[in-house]
């Protein structure tokens, strides 16, 4: 009761869904006491489209183009997770060259995503010069992706059973040239984010999350690694090319915004190293194999490390040319809780940076959830659930 009275004296600041800071829709409510945030809630769902359901009426090949559009920033990751899962179900293995090219595009994408993030983070902190610098340099990697796959975003590099684009010698040398430039720029960024007093002032000891907290909340990806959690699917459960080209996990112990920045900038170096290694030892051979139209019955879980953390697909096939069920779990949804937990006690002005600190992706997070109260617990068979779903959305 007392809490309620207290809550009444506090002011709630609503932000969004249309807001100048982030480019995607999300609604936040910060309860403030003066300048200090005492509570935070998030309301998602503006970009919910119904992709999981949509996959069920498309065949496997069409579904891949749909899941690629779950998120425009990690489009390759989603298509790769889907393709890897479908291949596992159909007992098809993509040739080694295809796996290496998947890794290559994945790492190029990680560079583009991390640079994008660094720019956005700097922008939220009022450091627009760094924003412009990173986005200018990011065009280098966008050019490389376009040269390799034919599109700047949503590259569709994957097909079921392999990849569609091959790395020729001229392309490889261009990529290497680009990597040299980016490495030099990344060194500059590392220098700036770890020495610039203004940037340090906005990030050091802001939103600190201990390792225990990170474990309890379930933080993943760079957000978790910044708190010392040594988790990376690329190393823990290697897939595609990562079997032959292992990575070194980058961790930081700080747990604050600074650590999250450092992890991402240092991962740029790791990606660059990996890209050089792959191009040096690119396995020869085919880039795709035939994939049957109908995928045999079964279910798999496919996991891939996206720039933001672990992407998990549960895929079920009933033996037809369409998936029976696709369940997508994206990293942003796991990391939301960390923002809500670390926001309390900070100034309202720190919120944009804290929010951007997990590299949130709204189009990934927007799921529809039905909350069933414990006392009217009900069990539904798969068929009944499906019928219910079809009826509900008619």
């Amino acid at each position: 009761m007392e809490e309620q009275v207290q809550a009444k004296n506090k002011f709630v600041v609503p932000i969004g869904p249309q807001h100048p800071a982030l480019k995607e829709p999300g609604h936040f409510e910060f309860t403030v006491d003066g300048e200090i945030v005492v509570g935070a809630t998030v309301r998602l769902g503006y970009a919910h489209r119904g992709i999981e359901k949509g996959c069920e009426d498309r065949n496997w090949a069409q579904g891949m183009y749909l899941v690629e559009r779950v998120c425009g920033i990690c489009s390759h990751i989603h298509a790769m997770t889907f393709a890897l899962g479908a291949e596992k179900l159909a007992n098809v293995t993509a040739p080694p060259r295809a796996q290496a090219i998947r890794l290559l595009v994945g790492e190029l994408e990680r560079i583009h995503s991390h640079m994008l993030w660094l720019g956005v983070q700097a922008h939220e902190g009022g450091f627009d010069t760094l924003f412009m610098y990173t986005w200018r340099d990011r065009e280098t990697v966008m050019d490389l992706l376009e040269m390799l796959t034919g599109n700047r975003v949503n590259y569709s590099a994957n097909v079921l059973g392999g990849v569609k684009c091959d790395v020729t010698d001229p392309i490889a040398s261009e990529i290497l040239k680009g990597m040299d430039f980016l490495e030099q720029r990344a060194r500059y960024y590392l220098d700036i984010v770890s020495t610039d007093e203004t940037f340090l002032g906005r990030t050091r000891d802001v939103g600190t999350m201990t390792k225990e907290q990170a474990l309890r909340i379930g933080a993943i990806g760079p957000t978790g690694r910044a708190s010392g959690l040594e988790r990376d699917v690329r190393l823990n459960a290697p897939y595609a090319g990562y079997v032959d080209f292992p990575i070194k996990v980058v961790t930081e112990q700080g747990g604050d915004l600074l650590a999250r920045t450092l992890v991402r900038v240092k991962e740029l170096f790791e990606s660059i190293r990996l890209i050089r290694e792959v191009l040096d030892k690119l396995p020869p051979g085919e880039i795709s194999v035939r994939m049957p139209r109908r995928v045999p019955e079964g279910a798999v879980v496919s996991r891939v490390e996206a720039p933001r953390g672990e992407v998990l697909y549960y895929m079920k096939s009933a033996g037809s040319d369409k998936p029976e069920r696709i369940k997508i779990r994206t990293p942003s949804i796991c990391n939301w809780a960390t923002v809500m937990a670390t926001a309390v006690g900070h100034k309202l002005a720190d919120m944009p940076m804290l929010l951007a600190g997990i590299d949130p992706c709204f189009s990934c997070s927007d799921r529809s959830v039905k909350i069933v109260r414990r006392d009217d617990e009900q069990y539904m068979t798969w068929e009944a659930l499906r019928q219910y779903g079809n009826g509900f959305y008619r």
Partner: protein
Amino acid sequence: MEGNFERTLIDGLNTWARTNSPWAIHYNSGSCNGCDIEILATLTPRYDIERLGIKLQGSPRHADVLICTGPVSRQSRDRLVRIYEQMPDPKFVVAVGSCAISGGAFRGLYNIMGGIDEVIPVNVFIPGCPPRPEAIIYGVVQLLETLKK
């Protein structure tokens, strides 16, 4: 007679100001954010749309042009209409991406209403998934050209 002259003068001045420095606002009504990062890329040094006087603005109340991306999801429909209604007249809408035109890859999904023009009137459509930054700039310039007439 005199009133007429003043009106033409003010109209001319308004058009001049509007076409030389339109302020834009961006709303994502359910896109995959591929289009959004390309819009952001048009603001950054390589493409630099600000050299055409176009500025991205935070509040709908200050904006002349609404740049929309993505299909309209049932959740964000009301928001989109609200933002459109908050903008002062005359207002223009640019729909960026195949999704904004027809729903694109998401057409037919249960939570998708279709393209932007199902909900609000659109002046310029820019096709592509996502359109290149050059295409976005071209589309905006087309809009400015029609305004001059």
